[in-house]
């Protein structure tokens, strides 16, 4: 019984090799065996037995009481993204469980490993419209990698082991386990916890087929203008080193998707910037000029590709991914390499020639100059009286030196932050990419701090997004956590306003959003803060925020009608990227 962390006193007879545990205790024993140290959650009727058991596990499992289940699951996501481990969230049945749905969908589309455990009504009440009963399994089916309802406690150790295995292996994703109240209460003979490493119907990754590697290498070696685009797969596959070794040997300029950001240090000479709708000029234009496009751990999202029938038509495409259903899904690959990039990249590195493409890389740099002239310089060093989001991030960079974890919400501030924030270390950019969930940042930052306690965590949030999950300030208050909250307030739902300006004749329809006095709200939660409107005070305020011992809220008033450029308008090709 070495896996058992409960004190032996709780058992009647310690000489037996099984002991009697409740389903709830088995859940917590399983979490501990999986190395879980932090659980985000919110109690309620149907999950009370688990919370009752948790009372005795207080020294081994840290439970963070959030203010809303959505906050709980976003925190678990933040935890998973900053630590590279599985995030765990508890919620009760009914509304508790349905409040998880947005986070599950977010984790599903962004491949975040999560295990969500929900309470459920007694098994004999299933289907009777009992109090706080919802059909959680069916509601969450499309937004989970796997889900399962437990009605008998004896299933719990095996189901939990499977859940953790599925969540973190292959292409990671969220798994939900719904446990009826009777199963939580039920005592059974606990035979210990065995980790799962095989599910017969599930293939997390294939044996890499060398002939595809060889074909890919042949294309790369023959290329004159190769271009690498990378996504979160590099981070999830813990293959940052392998990736860097590859591009350095191949000499290939590399651009990132928003979720790939921080896998390669910002100032790496081959890092040519961000792809997609608000990405950099060079990577977008050169996508339609390169002769070999190598995509790794990314899924050709429409925000990355723009118009598909005009996307990299001239190029041979090599697509490396762990999920075979992504290969050929949006963009047809000339060579698809199905496998874990931790394995495929080194195999590829072996077969490629050491090269440099100075003239080709120079083309990206020329685009950078153009973009700098038209967009970046003014954004980072504005001549306007009003502050810009870009200069706030520039100042932040200067103070953090690119060592902070930066969590962003969704909208203009997200694009600006991802464009300009500097990163030295992987797993430092945490944002809601695929789903674009406003309200993500504040709770995700809380989770990120728990996942990486020794790092500075800065949440950059718009005035819209902060108001969606502002209640999580209560979680910060209660836990005494140290996260830096920076609200970039343009007094608009800025991204929608930008679209309305550009495409709807400035018909500003319900984008004018009022804000409370955030500093006063923070104060109510015992969190220090200040509001900045002037350039002269910005840097000092940022400094104060970063140096403050504890959480700090900084509201920065920025230009009301600033737009994010470059922009690939919807329905346009990436090479039609607009600089203004």
């Amino acid at each position, binding site marked *: 019984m070495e896996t058992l962390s409960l004190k032996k006193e709780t058992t009647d007879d310690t000489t037996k090799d099984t002991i009697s545990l409740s389903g709830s205790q088995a859940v917590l024993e399983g979490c501990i065996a999986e190395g879980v140290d932090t659980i985000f959650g919110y109690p309620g009727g149907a999950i009370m037995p688990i919370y009752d058991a948790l009372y005795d596990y207080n020294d081994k499992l840290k439970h963070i009481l959030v203010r809303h289940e959505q906050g709980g699951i976003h925190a678990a996501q933040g935890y998973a993204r900053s630590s590279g481990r599985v995030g765990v969230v508890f919620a009760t049945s009914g509304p508790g469980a349905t409040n998880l749905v947005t986070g599950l969908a977010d984790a599903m589309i962004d491949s975040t490993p999560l295990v969500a455990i929900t309470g459920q009504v007694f098994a004999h009440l299933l289907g009777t419209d009992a109090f706080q009963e919802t059909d959680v399994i069916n509601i969450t089916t499309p937004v989970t990698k796997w889900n399962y309802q437990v009605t008998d406690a004896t299933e719990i150790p095996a189901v939990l082991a499977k859940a953790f295995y599925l969540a973190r292996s292959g292409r990671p994703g969220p798994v939900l386990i719904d446990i009826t109240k009777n199963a939580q209460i039920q005592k059974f003979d606990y035979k210990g916890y065995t980790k799962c490493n095989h599910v017969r119907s599930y293939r997390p990754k294939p044996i890499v087929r060398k002939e595809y590697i060889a074909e890919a290498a042949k294309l790369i070696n023959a290329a004159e203008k190769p271009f690498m685009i990378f996504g979160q797969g590099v981070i999830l596959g813990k293959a940052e080193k392998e990736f860097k070794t590859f591009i350095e040997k191949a000499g290939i300029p590399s651009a990132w998707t928003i979720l790939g950001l921080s896998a390669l240090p910002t100032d790496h000479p081959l890092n040519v910037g961000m792809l997609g709708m608000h990405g950099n000029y060079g990577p977008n234009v050169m996508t339609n000029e390169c002769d070999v496009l190598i995509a790794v751990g990314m899924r050709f999202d429409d925000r990355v590709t723009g118009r598909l029938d005009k996307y990299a038509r001239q190029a041979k495409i090599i697509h490396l991914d762990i999920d075979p259903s992504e*290969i050929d899904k949006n963009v047809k690959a000339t060579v698809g390499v199905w496998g874990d990039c931790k394995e495929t990249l080194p195999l590829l590195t072996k077969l490629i020639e050491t090269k440099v493409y100075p003239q080709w890389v120079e083309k990206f740099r020329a685009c950078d100059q153009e973009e700098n002239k038209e967009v970046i310089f003014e954004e980072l060093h504005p001549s306007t009286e009003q502050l810009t989001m870009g200069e706030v991030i520039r100042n932040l960079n200067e103070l953090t030196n690119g060592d902070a974890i930066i969590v962003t919400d969704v909208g203009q501030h997200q694009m600006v932050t991802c464009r300009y924030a500097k990163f030295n270390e992987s797993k430092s950019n945490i944002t809601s990419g695929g789903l674009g969930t406003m309200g993500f940042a504040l709770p995700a930052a809380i989770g990120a701090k728990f996942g990486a306690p020794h790092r500075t965590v800065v949440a950059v949030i718009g005035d819209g997004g902060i108001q969606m999950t502002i209640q999580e300030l209560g979680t910060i208050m209660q836990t005494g956590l140290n996260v830096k909250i920076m609200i970039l307030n343009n007094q608009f739902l800025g991204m929608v306003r930008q679209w309305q300006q550009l495409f709807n004749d400035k018909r500003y329809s319900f984008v004018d959003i009022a804000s409370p006095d955030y500093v006063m709200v923070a104060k109510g939660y015992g969190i220090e803060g200040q509001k900045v409107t002037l350039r002269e005070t910005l840097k000092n305020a940022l400094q104060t925020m970063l140096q403050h011992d504890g959480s700090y809220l900084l509201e920065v008033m920025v230009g009301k009608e600033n737009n994010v450029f470059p922009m690939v308008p919807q329905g346009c090709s990436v090479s039609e990227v607009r600089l203004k």
Partner: protein
Amino acid sequence: MKQEFTITVYAENHIGLLVRIATIFSRRKINIESLNTSPSEAEGIHRFTIVIEETEEVVRKLARQIEKQVEVLKAYYNTNEEIIWQELALYKVPTDEIAEKVKVERLLREHGARAVVIRKDYTIFETSGHREETDKLVEVLAPYGLIEFVRSARVAIIKNSKGFHEKLKEFDEAEPGEELIENEFLDKQDEVFTM
């Protein structure tokens, strides 16, 4: 070009998997023409037979999404030429009508029908075959007061299939051989979807 495809899915027999598979179609607004679930030749393995009308490109992507589900072992898709299939139909007609106005015997013989139940008030016939064939008997029986008609989903056998026994053995192993986890979706060989 859209055409009829039969998707054969080998999967664990778990509650909830049907919904997972169904949503793969419904979220893309693709109608399932026919769906059958049954045991397969391999013990404990369930077999789904799904008929849809789509282009091959779409069907290929659907098959990949289906196979991505944790509890699915394999998904194959085939054109009608590559399979042998049957659908079962039942017809309920008034016995009086049928006995007086048609020669039951001829009916049975011409349409390959079988009488399952003959009662004073009604008779139930059964045929199996392709849709066009079962539809034809509906036409013939309609004038005589067809009381009820029902047709089952398609069940299909893939002509080239060697069955699932051998593959299952490999799935059972934690480290299956190369053949099983081959890069088959990416393979250019046609064999992929015909087993």
